[in-house]
């Protein structure tokens, strides 16, 4: 311990020295502004592009792998427009399919789950077609995906909507010819505060234990709630280190997003243009 601390401290000091050295070359006011700007961007980017953040598990991390992965993601994003979307948004995915007529397949559905980091990022779309619930899991960087359209951009109250499987079918039914709903420019992403009505038990999961916000009263006997209360772990939110190990520190996020920022910016601009164009299209049709 004694031997390692000074060495570590030294390297850290050197790092900081370098950081300050770059900062002092520019006028005094600018760096502060720049710093706050990049911080702001990070705050935005991590919501829009969460898959650019690496797996926070320390054993699995490697800077070179992460760098290669990011460059591949950017290379793929240059060929396909992967828009901003959230769990709860309604998407239409067009993908190459060998077996469908015209060799293309379009699926409309609500995004009920979004997970994975890097090239493994994926999302789960759900729809009810002919009274039959259908779910398709798409890899975001799959080269067979021709395009992703956001038909309705919104968030829900929960981070996962897997309970829609046990909800009444009307909550996950979407018209496949649905038109794009345009948000006014610069408006924040709306949060849909709809409360879903679940079917009576049996369910696929014990939803009363998941602390869900987007469901109506579950109408269960009291013993279910008692058991859920027994299994709660209220101390876990105070475990600072557990929290820390599930996140990527801000310094690293700034580094990552400043690296990919220019590329993302370019694709983001293209995205906006495209959205405007698609706005024109339906009016023509109508």
């Amino acid at each position, binding site marked *: *311990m*004694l031997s390692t*601390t*000074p060495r*570590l*401290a030294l390297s*850290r*000091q050197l790092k*900081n020295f370098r950081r300050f050295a770059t900062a002092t070359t520019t006028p005094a006011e600018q760096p502060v502004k720049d710093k706050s700007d990049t911080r702001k961007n990070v*705050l935005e980017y*991590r*919501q829009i592009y*969460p*898959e650019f*953040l*690496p*797996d*926070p*598990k*320390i*054993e*699995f991390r490697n800077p070179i792998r992460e760098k290669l992965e990011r460059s591949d993601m950017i290379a793929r994003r240059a060929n396909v427009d992967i828009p901003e979307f959230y769990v709860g948004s309604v998407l239409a995915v067009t993908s190459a399919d060998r077996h469908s007529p015209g060799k293309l397949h379009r699926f409309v559905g609500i995004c009920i789950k979004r*997970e*994975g*980091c890097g090239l*493994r990022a994926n999302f789960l779309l759900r729809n009810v077609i002919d009274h039959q619930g259908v779910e398709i899991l798409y890899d975001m960087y799959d080269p067979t995906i021709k395009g992703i359209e956001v038909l309705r951009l919104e968030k829900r109250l929960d981070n996962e909507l897997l309970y829609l499987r046990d909800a009444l079918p009307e909550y996950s039914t979407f018209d496949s010819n649905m038109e794009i709903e345009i948000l006014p420019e610069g408006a924040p992403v709306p949060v849909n505060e709809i409360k879903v009505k679940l079917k009576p038990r049996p369910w696929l999961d014990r939803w009363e234990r998941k602390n869900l916000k987007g469901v109506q009263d579950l109408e269960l006997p009291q013993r279910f709630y008692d058991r859920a209360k027994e299994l709660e*772990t209220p*101390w*876990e939110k*105070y*475990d*600072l*280190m*557990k*929290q*820390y*190990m*599930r*996140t*990527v*520190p*801000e*310094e*690293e*996020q700034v580094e990552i997003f400043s690296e990919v920022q220019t590329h993302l910016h370019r694709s983001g601009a293209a995205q906006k243009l495209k959205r405007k164009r698609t706005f024109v299209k339906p009016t023509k049709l109508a």
Partner: protein
Amino acid sequence: MNQAEISKLVSQLRVRVNPRLRKLKSAGGPEARLDKLRKTVTALIKHERIELNYPRADESRMYAERLISDAIRYGDCHRETMEMADFWLIEKQLVHKLFKVLAPRFVNYSTAYTRMYTAPSVYPEVVKRAVLELRGNPYPSLVPDMHNNRNLIHNVLLDEAKKAYRTQKYEEIAAKIDAAEKSVSEEARK
């Protein structure tokens, strides 16, 4: 799956983070483990230097660092940070110390906020002991600062070696320059 949580932003810790957290042999489960750590963190903030078993010191060091870094980052007007401070500091007057004394003290630090030394253990015991302290504490330093002691024998020897090495290097460079000048002048003569 393995995706980073994005709801919270944290500053990077300046201490090594173990890949797995220790269980610390707590009979009451994870809740009791946190209780144990709370006591240690409170004691550290209160006394600024404590001696304890190594595993517990190493574990509570990370928690203390997190608490201080959050206090610096968000300040005392942030509700979640205040809740954390309220949970982690059993003696409530220490909450004031955290936000009004420690946060200003460490705000410009570029190193870790705590320091840990291995401590000797008394003979029949074989448990590894450690001393954990906050940096900038009022106590005298535990180890003498020898980093700039030029009179240590190996530093003296290295200084001499450095002189000899440099002179040799300069001589070689000078010889090279001379040779180059000679060749240039010879060419000019021709």
